[in-house]
């Protein structure tokens, strides 16, 4: 992909569209049921597996864990694959970069890795709680939902971005952000 940067998101995105179609077709043919791209249910299964290590009975008796079947499945491997693919691609074109505090965060909150860690952690707690309540994330509801013309996908993606826009403006535009 040696296109000018402005074509990058379109080309890479279109290829993800092709990948999504191939994935659904291939899983239907080979596994007998379609697998659509998604990510957030894997966090439920991973949390369940971790909790099982200390309190197996507790996980077995939880209705939500039971409904999601706590195991390493197709999507779990997909999420691991995302890590490997991003690692490989970023090493290949030398865009791999160690970063402990992202630039926009630094401008607003300074260069403390601890504060960034705290923000990332609590943002993560709230976001995943919301994703599970909404029934999916920008992959499952956004990409897969909109490809299938699912009404829940349009509702969820609208509120993902709508609230994201409001909160990002409140958090990063207020006060002493200097450019």
């Amino acid at each position, binding site marked *: 992909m040696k296109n000018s940067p402005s074509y990058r998101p379109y*080309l890479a*995105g279109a290829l*993800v569209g092709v990948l999504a179609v191939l994935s659904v077709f291939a899983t239907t043919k080979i596994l007998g049921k379609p697998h659509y791209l998604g990510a957030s249910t894997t*966090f439920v299964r991973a949390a369940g597996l971790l909790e099982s290590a200390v309190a197996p009975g507790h996980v077995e008796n939880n209705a939500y864990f039971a409904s999601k079947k706590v195991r390493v499945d197709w999507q779990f491997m997909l999420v691991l694959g995302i890590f490997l693919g*991003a690692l490989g691609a970023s090493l290949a074109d030398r865009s791999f970069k160690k970063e402990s505090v992202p630039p926009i965060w630094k401008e607003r909150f300074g260069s403390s890795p601890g504060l960034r860690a705290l923000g990332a952690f609590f943002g993560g707690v709230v976001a995943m709680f919301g994703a599970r309540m909404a029934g999916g994330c920008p992959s499952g*509801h956004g990409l897969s939902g909109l490809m299938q013309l699912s009404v829940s996908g349009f509702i969820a993606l609208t509120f993902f971005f709508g609230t994201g826009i409001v909160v990002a403006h409140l958090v990063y535009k207020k006060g002493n952000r200097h450019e």
Partner: protein
Amino acid sequence: MSELWMGLIIGILFGALLQQGRVLRFEKQVGAMLLEDMTILKFMLSAILVGMVGIQLLASLGAIQLKIKATSVAANVAGGILFGGGWAIMGYCPGTSVGAVGEGRWHAVWAILGMLAGAALYAELYPAMKSNLLAWGSLGELTLPGILSTTPWAVVPALCLVYLALFVWLEKKGL
């Protein structure tokens, strides 16, 4: 076994494309929410445009089955609002957080740990929400062509035009 291998291979390709699209970065995700850099929107809508045509075509031919997530108005809206707020602070979504670590943005590890805690918390509170909040406005597996009582092929071309027009507008505005 082939289930796991297929997931891994598709995931590796997905991760490489997310990385090459440059959408794994905090500044791209928050940049979109600040309406300064619409890279992730271009990426997502390009994927959706191509995927929509392919999926709808295969479904019309009977080659694949759709897997529609049920519409539950209260849960979709309340969950959407919570996700959006957390997303702005975290700067990653669940899929991209994992890719961001692969790209060297190791602070995304904290985002992943937070999301694991959020998933565990949700599992604990789920029984208390199941019959009230999560059930409000439960409408089943709705699709756009379904509620408009039309075929997907009336909706697909219209949405293609909307997405393409949006791309033209974004490029004009230099976003």
